[in-house]
């Protein structure tokens, strides 16, 4: 692969309970800029832990994670770094139930120095991109599961990050909505050149990812 490495896990381990539980064991992985990487594996294999380490949400017990060659734990402390560079999509969406679609999508923009008008314009543009423009003022409580995940994707994209981490993005959806979400991720990947790191235990059609790795017992076994 000739693409530059955007994210790299170098010999990372993650132990819990004083080392009794080894979630990840001396694992190394490169993520290339602009690709969709599917991290697959059964429940409890350590794939979500790996995603959290790659996203800088957790620190490895051993090893290091580099973002564009720099230790992620260090640069994540910089003001606005996470918002501007990373987007997160979760299986359970994690939307604010008492806010509407537009307000939910605008949440990351609170950390960016823009006027309210610019924030609204940016959020509206991305809501249009995920096909929910007509529901922008609707409460997220009134949306279907598929629509909620599209709101979560819009929220992840609104600050134009270079990479999106998706933890079981289709895990709560039926097959039709799951396919719509995969299509959406592929579309934003191609149109916005966003790198996508996706964790899933489901079989997904090959056209929706560029590369896949299998995690089993805290190690990559591909």
């Amino acid at each position, binding site marked *: 692969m000739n693409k530059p490495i955007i994210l790299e896990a170098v010999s990372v381990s993650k132990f819990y309970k004083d080392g009794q539980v080894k979630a990840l064991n001396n694992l190394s992985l490169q993520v290339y800029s602009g690709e969709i990487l599917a991290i697959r594996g059964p429940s409890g294999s350590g794939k979500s832990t790996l995603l*959290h380490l790659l996203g800088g949400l957790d620190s490895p017990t051993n090893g290091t994670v580099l973002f564009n060659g720099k230790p992620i734990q260090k640069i994540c402390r910089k003001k606005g770094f996470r*918002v501007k560079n990373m987007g997160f999509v*979760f299986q359970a969406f994690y939307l604010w139930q008492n806010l509407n679609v537009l307000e939910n999508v605008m949440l990351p923009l609170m950390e960016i120095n823009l006027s309210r008008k610019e924030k609204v314009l940016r959020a509206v543009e991305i809501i249009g991109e995920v096909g929910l423009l007509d529901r922008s003022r609707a409460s997220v409580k009134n949306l279907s599961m598929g629509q909620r995940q599209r709101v979560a994707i819009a929220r992840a994209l609104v600050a134009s990050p270079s990479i999106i981490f998706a933890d079981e993005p289709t895990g709560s959806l039926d097959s039709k909505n799951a396919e719509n979400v995969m299509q959406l991720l592929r579309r934003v990947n191609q149109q916005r050149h966003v790198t996508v790191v996706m964790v899933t235990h489901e079989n997904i059609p090959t056209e929706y990812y560029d590369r896949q790795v299998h995690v089993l017992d805290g190690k990559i076994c591909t």
Partner: protein
Amino acid sequence: MRSGLTILGVGISIAAFVSLRGLTDNLEKSLQSTYKSRGSDLVVMEKSTLDLFASSIDQSYVTSLRRIPHVKQSTPVLFYFYAVKFKQYCLLYGWEPGSYLFDGFKIAGSPLQNDHDALVGAVAAKRLNMLQGDKIKIRGEEFRICGIFQSINILEESGIILPLSTLQKIKNTPGKITAINLRLDCSDSLKMSLEQRQDISKQVQDTINNEFSDLEVKDVQDFVSTPFSVVFSFTWAISMVVFIIVVMGIINTMSTAVLERRKEIGILLAIGWRKYRIVTLVLLEAAMYGFFGGIIGIILGCVMTRSLITAPAVQGFISMTPDSAFVIKSLLLSIFVGVLAGIYPAVKAVSIEPIEVLRYE
């Protein structure tokens, strides 16, 4: 529901503060204006007495004090709380007929001329349902109401003025007075600056303190009677308890809210919100409790104060003067207390680790 109850709780606490402070502040103002409105600059009373009304000094000091440089006039006063009718207490003032204290008085009728003449304040006359020419019995002696007077001061207007010697007699304290009011030669001098007047007042106070070891002198500008200062301290202590209740209420509500929103806060931190923004959010919410509770409290407090000042026990002693500065101060205090109470929940909020939330979920 919980937020509403918290706001109501804050409101009731602030109402208690507003009514307590409102009453004592107005009482303090009434006391101060009693002296200011009569043109006195200094008040001399017995040293180290707890209560102005317990002060008892010899009347002969009036002449001694008049000899001090810059003292233009000195006049004795005798105070006596007395229930003229059942539970209808009045402050009886013993003044010397012709004293400068009568300057500027509006009297409907005639001034004090005989030993058994009484001047009744307009508020007292209304409360006691008395008119000029009526008779009034005080400690078994009958007095003729020679006039009804008006004053800018509610405490005066709710009192009865008797000739000093008569009040001394019926109180069985001949030759004794409560205090001496002094008017200085600089008090109405337009040529002098405030600093010059304060210097002269200081000189006179120093002279009295040095020469009369059993007397205590106070400037009317900061004169607060000792018993009332005890009341004021007491109300401050109650206010402190009230604020502790407010703080605990908000801490409880906000901590529960933070606990309930643990997931949401964790997600906000995960998507890149900085901790200071979470802190701001929590403190803003706490400040809102303070703000809305403060508004409710001020309205409730004003209603409570208005009801209290019409109670028979205090009627006529305290006036309700609208004070926008006090309202603003109370509201700001309420917001400040809200923010203060928000600190602990805010610290709890930022101690949430997004990874813990995600792992748990």
